């Protein structure tokens, strides 16, 4: 169910980009794997035109990060700078969403349902989301200026569509990656109506997780 939702929001993002692109654009097919291991999901792959972004390419949209069953869904979100994100609470209890990240520090004190105004992310960077009253709830919002990005599925595959032909730097980012994003960037030249395959290997650092309190869902009657 969580997976479906993720796919849904992913698809929304891709469609949005497609609508704004020309029909003969290039496609990047990226494959992300963890070092020494299998394919890596939840990795953000994004491409910057070496020539720089045009004004038409800079536009924020809207995004939703749900709170379902005391978890953020999706765990990793990628948005273009200027995107407004809604945090609808689907649980019966309240949540207190916060971020101490420099890219966007905010707090939505205890609330139910969807807050009246969404949070607008106006700086590129990484925002770590947490819930004040549920230590284990955590989510990542990757904010980037480029409209060309995608998140790897469970198989580690990402498809970036409708990229105008040209020279691009393709990056990968993962919440636990140890290396700097620039060090793993790959420069490619894309041509119209052609697909270009790239592969990334990400080295993950160890992640300590807080203890999770027993959930009502986990102990469903």
């Amino acid at each position: 169910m969580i997976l479906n939702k993720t796919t849904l929001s992913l698809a929304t993002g891709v469609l949005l980009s497609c609508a704004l692109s020309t029909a003969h654009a290039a496609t990047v097919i990226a494959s992300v794997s963890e070092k020494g291991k299998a394919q890596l999901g939840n990795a953000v792959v994004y491409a910057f035109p070496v020539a720089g972004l045009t004004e038409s390419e800079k536009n924020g949209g809207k995004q939703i990060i749900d709170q379902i069953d005391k978890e953020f869904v999706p765990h990793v979100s990628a948005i273009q700078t200027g995107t407004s994100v809604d945090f609808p609470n689907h649980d019966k209890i309240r949540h207190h969403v916060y971020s101490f990240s420099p890219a966007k520090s905010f707090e939505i004190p205890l609330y139910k349902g969807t807050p009246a105004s969404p949070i607008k992310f106006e700086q590129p960077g990484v925002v770590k989301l947490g819930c004040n009253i549920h230590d284990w709830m955590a989510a990542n919002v990757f904010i980037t200026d480029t409209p060309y990005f995608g998140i790897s599925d469970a198989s580690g595959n990402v498809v970036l569509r409708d990229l105008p032909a040209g020279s691009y730097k393709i990056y990968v980012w993962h919440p636990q990656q140890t290396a700097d994003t620039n060090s793993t960037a790959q420069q490619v030249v894309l041509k119209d109506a052609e697909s270009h395959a790239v592969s990334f290997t990400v080295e993950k650092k160890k992640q300590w997780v807080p203890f999770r309190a027993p959930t009502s869902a986990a102990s469903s009657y």
Partner: protein
Amino acid sequence: MQRAATSIFQFKNFRTRLLIFLISLLGTVLGAVFFSVNQANISNARLHLEDALQLTANSFARSLRGREKILTEKVRLLSSDFAFKSAFATRDTETIRSVLKNHQQRVGANIMLLLSLEGETIANTTDSGRGDSSPALDDLLTAAMSSSHGEASAIQIIDNIAYQMVIVPLFTPEPSAWILIGFVVDDSFSLEQGEFTRSEVSLLYHYKDRPWQIVSSTLQDEAKSQLTEAIASNIVSTSRVFDLLLQGEEYLSLILKVQKGATGESIAVLQRSLDDALAPYLRLRTLMFMLFSSGLAMSIVGAIMIARGLSHPIEQLVKTAKRIENGDYSEGVTIQRQDEIGTLATSFNSMVEGLAERDRVQSLLGKVVSREVADELLSKGIELGGEEREVTILFSDVRDFTSLCELHEPNEILNLLNRYLTHMSNSIEEHGGIVDKYIGDAIMALFGAPVFKEDSPQNAVDCALEMQTEIRLLNHELAKDGLQPLTIGIGINTSKVVAGNMGSSNRLNYTVIGDGVNLASRLEGLTKLYGTEIIVSQSTRDLCPDLLFRELDRVQVKGKSDSVAIFEPLSVAEASSASSKSALHQYHLAIAHYRSREWDEAERLFNQLLVDDSDKKIYQLYLARIIKYRQNPPSSDWHGVAVCKEK
């Protein structure tokens, strides 16, 4: 005494023997019990202590884990504290330090540190800073990083103070820093643990290549340094219970590994005093010793009393037995007891009574019959019948006793008779004869019965001579009392007679029966006729070769066909006189002439003899016969035998 010398286990004294037996028996048994119980107690105490120590170690380890968990939970609260996260987000070191101090206060910790994920100090509640003095925090970080929740706990030394440190990540919400909280571990920690486990508890820590140091301990300072020395010298076992001497007290010790990291390790040493554990056993030992000693002492006293209870009556019995040996039956033993000794005493007293009775009977018997006869009767038993043996029989009689009786009162006569018989009986007994019976004033005495004696005939003759002397002494006494003198005649004959008990089965006499007895009686009767005091038969005279006799006659006594030669023994005075001897010789010559019917020669010699001894009746007797035979010569078969018609 000689037997005692042959064996050292032979004791003269019953009490000593009983005592030595009891002491050695009880001593061995009690000693063995004491020794084995003591050994069993000590080894049991050790086993018990080792078990207890293992349990203590488990309990201590659990307690340590429990404490860690509690401390970790305290710190975890902080790691999720939103206010703290907010403060951390400010990146303002002083604010962060102030928050740390606030939390330190809240949870009652002694130190708090905030480290970056890389291990750099962000904030520290102590003023000194961690510096190089705490390299072992690296162990803690390593442990935290390798755990799933980023949490770890360990004993750490910071600025020479031991802390139980807990590390947790600060989640904002991802791990962004390390929070460290330390709680001081000092002696009070050990005291608390020691109180809980009732053991000596010491916690030691050391950095790699640095000496062990005691972080916390219930031990005294001196013992502490002894303990670190022992641990440092590696003489102790790290897996098993071992003995350690601290301040002269023996401890059973067990080492518990608390943690071991790359830079340092800590151990706990749990100890229990062996002396303390043995204290109840020592009390038991003392009690046992006292019980055993008093038991032994009581046994000794009891043995002495038993021995005395036995030896006392035995001594009394011995004393009484000795008195009885000396003929004193006046009292038996006085032991009033119900046991075997009492039975013995009763039997002993019965025996004394029996002995006394027998002695009385014997003494009475000795008065009624002679001592020899009494002894014979008592030794052989009384039964009718006798045996033939050669016995010399002596008869004595007071002459003219009947006319004497007429002159005096019967009482006086009895008195006189008793005096006379006592004198005569004494003489007879002195010469080994026995008085067979008194027949009025006559005495029948036996020599050579019931006990045969070789020189009985001579004794009898000697006795007769002394009886004559005695009668003269008695007459001397009687004269003083104004009484008439007594004269006695004595006849002696030696003959084979039957000696034995005669009479009925209920009443019997020991006496002799036979012709010889009658002859002795006849000879006594002849004394008056021949004017002699003693007449001895031929058979007796032949058995007395050492004595001199005067042949009196050849007589044929009444009731006898054979004639018998009769003799008169010469008194000692006569026998030693030369004139008497020559007179005797002339007399025997005269008798020889007489028997050859040479009346004139015989008459001449008798007349010569009569010149010297005019009172001699025997000479007159023969002179009268010579006159008679001249007128009426005897028949041709006459051989000088006189026929006595009198009894």
